[in-house]
């Protein structure tokens, strides 16, 4: 079966990079994967989303249409995509920006990822990795060590430390998350 | 045997294939062609290593007549095609034959960027102030007030100074001559062929049948006399009072400065990248 993930927010939040990192982690586990994206012509602001579909079978349609997991980092993204989440799907929202949840999904996880990144890591730049690691730990879609390897292969050496810190913080937040 | 110029020219022509040519009686294109061939012959260049590229227009028909590697391209695009040829085979001499409309109207963008890159193309721009092949439409070098079929009441646009345009874009070798000054033309072309970098030679030329008739210039001899009487060599300009220079065609090599040539720069980039071991 396909496992469909949509990472959504606005341009500049690093969601496409997060999608690439997640997809690469799946490749490390020798699974089938497609990663697509949609964004405006600008590199900052506007809508941005990255889809990752992970499967053990051939993946035909490359875009997520019925998500197993939705990560929403902005109110607009949450409002726009919430209704395409499966009933049993996992919703992860960044409460720094998502203040109004129109429909509480059964499996909703809420944390102010952006604020946490600013507070604990000194910058919001790693919000993408922080929330991605949270997603990975929560869904179990890829192994934690695969994500770590993928981050190591993908991000520039100079930024590796801070990203690995963000990853670890994401794992810890997921492990200690209380509903 | 004396070296009869006509015989030299004859040796470089595809005389058994594509003659008679398309040019009108009195046209300057033949003079330009002769000067190019004599310059090439004087340098003893291997004709297998010469590519002549042209666009669309009267002068751009030149490549079909000469026994070199020849490429008759699209209107305005000769410099872009030539850039591809030169980059692939940097050791070859790439000569571009173009006209005022071809090179400064539809092809103006390619001219300025090739000049900026300083890629080693020899651009010979035959400027007859008109679109001759299509019957006399206005070009960017048609003088103000001159008559063209698309400017029947007189041209209201100012004209380009092609050499200034090329120099403004960074061309490193820029020269101007006229069809009357055949030997000077040959000598400038020889210099350009030996010069490593983008070269532009503007040849002020006569189109007696189209431009001349529309503008009552008389026949070819009158137009040639005008080139003789109305032009001054660059060396003489300094010695003359400004009023004697005003409105005259200034002939000679207007700029010759050594600057990094594009294909050489590219070769050194490749060397540098490969020395890095492909990382």
């Amino acid at each position, binding site marked *: 079966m396909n496992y469909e993930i949509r990472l959504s927010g606005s341009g500049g939040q690093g969601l496409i990079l997060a999608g*690439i990192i997640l*997809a690469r982690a*799946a*490749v490390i586990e*020798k699974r*089938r*994967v*497609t*990663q*697509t*994206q*949609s964004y*405006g*012509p600008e590199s900052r602001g506007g809508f941005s989303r990255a889809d990752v579909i992970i499967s053990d079978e051939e*993946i*035909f*349609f*490359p*875009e997520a*249409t019925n998500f197993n997991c939705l990560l929403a980092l902005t109110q607009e993204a949450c409002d726009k995509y919430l209704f395409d989440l499966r009933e049993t799907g996992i919703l992860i929202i960044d409460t720094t920006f998502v203040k109004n949840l129109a429909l509480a999904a059964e499996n909703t996880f809420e944390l102010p990822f952006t604020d946490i990144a600013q507070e604990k890591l000194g910058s919001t730049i790693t919000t993408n990795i922080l929330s991605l690691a949270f997603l990975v730990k929560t869904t179990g879609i890829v192994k934690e060590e695969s994500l770590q390897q993928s981050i190591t292969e993908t991000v520039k050496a100079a930024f590796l430390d801070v990203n690995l810190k963000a990853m670890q913080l994401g794992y810890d937040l997921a492990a200690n998350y209380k509903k | 045997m004396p070296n009869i110029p006509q015989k030299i020219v004859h040796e470089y022509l*595809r005389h058994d*294939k*594509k003659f008679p040519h398309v040019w009108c009686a009195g046209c300057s294109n033949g003079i330009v062609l002769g000067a190019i061939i004599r310059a090439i012959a004087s340098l003893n260049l291997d*004709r*297998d*290593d010469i*590519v002549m590229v042209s666009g669309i227009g009267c002068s751009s028909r030149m*490549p*079909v007549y000469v*026994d*070199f*590697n*020849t*490429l*008759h*391209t*699209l209107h305005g*695009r000769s410099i*872009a*095609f*030539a*850039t*591809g*040829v030169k*980059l*692939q*085979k940097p*050791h*070859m001499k790439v000569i571009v034959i173009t006209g005022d409309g071809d090179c400064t109207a539809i092809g103006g*963008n*390619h001219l300025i*960027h090739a000049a900026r890159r300083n890629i080693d193309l020899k651009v010979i721009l035959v400027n007859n102030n008109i679109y001759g092949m299509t019957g006399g439409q206005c070009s960017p070098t048609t003088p103000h007030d001159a008559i063209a079929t698309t400017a029947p009441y007189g041209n209201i646009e100012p004209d380009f100074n092609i050499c200034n345009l090329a120099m403004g874009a960074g061309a490193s070798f820029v020269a101007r001559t006229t069809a009357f000054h055949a030997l000077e033309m040959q000598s400038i072309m020889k210099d350009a062929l030996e010069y490593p970098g983008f070269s532009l030679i503007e040849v002020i030329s006569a189109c007696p049948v189209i431009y001349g008739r529309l503008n009552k210039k008389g026949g070819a001899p009158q137009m040639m006399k005008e080139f003789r009487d109305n032009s001054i060599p660059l060396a003489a300009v300094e010695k003359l009072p400004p009023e004697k220079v005003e409105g005259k065609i200034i002939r000679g090599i207007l700029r010759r400065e050594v600057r990094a040539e594009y294909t050489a720069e*590219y070769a050194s*980039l*490749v060397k540098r*990248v*490969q*020395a890095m*071991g*492909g990382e």
Partner: protein
Amino acid sequence: MLKKTTKSTKAPAKESENPKVESKLDELQNKRERKNVLMQGNEAVAYGALDAGVNFFAGYPITPSTEVAEILATELPKRGGVFIQMEDEIASICAIVGASLAGAKSLTATSGPGFSLMQEGIGFAKITETPCVVVNVQRLGPSTGMPTSPAQGDIMQAKWGSHGDSPAIVLYPDSVKESYELTIRAVNLSEKYRTCVILLLDEVLGHMREAVQLPDMANVRVISRIKPTVPPHWYKHYDENQKYLSPLASYGEGYRFHVTGLTHDALGFPTNKSTEAGEMMERLRKKISYNIRDLVQIESHMMEDAKIAIFTAGITSRAAKAAIAMARHEGIKVGLLRPLTIWPFPDDAVRKMLRNVETVIVPELNQGQLIHEVQRLIKEKSDGSLIPIQRVNGQLITPNDILRKIKEVS
């Protein structure tokens, strides 16, 4: 016979002077190939071009094709090849044609607005029978349209975009892996047929990443143009032979031939004779039509027992396959016919499909292009048997869109 060049482990471009550098490059190349990697469609095009021996790229940045240029800007110098960013797309197509005549295997990549600008140059490559490849990563048009949104609006332009009759070879992949394979095929066909081959990609595919394992270089079949064996004075730039495939000399090899965009004779010189003009045009036509079997490639997916067929190309076929899987699950007999070569059009395969099924659904991201080609081949059936699904709003046609239509007609 065409030369079959089996690739050695050597880098495809000019030989490096330093053998140490060369072996290091090989090492890098092999390291890349052995691994199963996450790769983008545009990246696959760039590596396909390199593996096919492309050693000259001239282009102008345009979304969503820019990654092809960016990767080749990095990779070509390592291999001694040429990368140049030109002043516009017109200059780009002209430069790759010039380079090809000087012996390069050349390619450019662009999108809608740039593809429109290139059309005159594409026509020049076709009439002068000069090998080159144009990759068009399609975006929503007309005009600037939506630069980061998909559309399949250039299918007809790829065939008819340049003025005059000029038979086209156009390939259309639907996955990252196939983007790599069809780029190599595009280069091979351009060399073999001496023409401008067009590779159409969808925006989504150009930017999409998938896990792919590229084949070892030993398993990549590379075709290069046939060189003349006759002395220069016997050389005809457009020599006749049975299949209309003739040898091609390069500038600087002593042949001193003439190339012109004017209608020309077999030697390449301009002609106004109607007999020679007619011959030249026939030659361009027959070069394609006499070699249909070699050019046409189709995928037939679950068509054996299908009562409903979906006919589509590129990314839309991925939605079709997903829809077929769902419909088959419900017992509906539906299959897919997908052209990998859209021009020349696979008339025979489409005729066969029309004979064997009751209904054909043609989903496409345009206001109706492929469907007219299918319509053209319908002789006996009523018009009702041909069902369009058309969308031009920047969104893909989804599996559910197609499934709904399948259920409606089944």
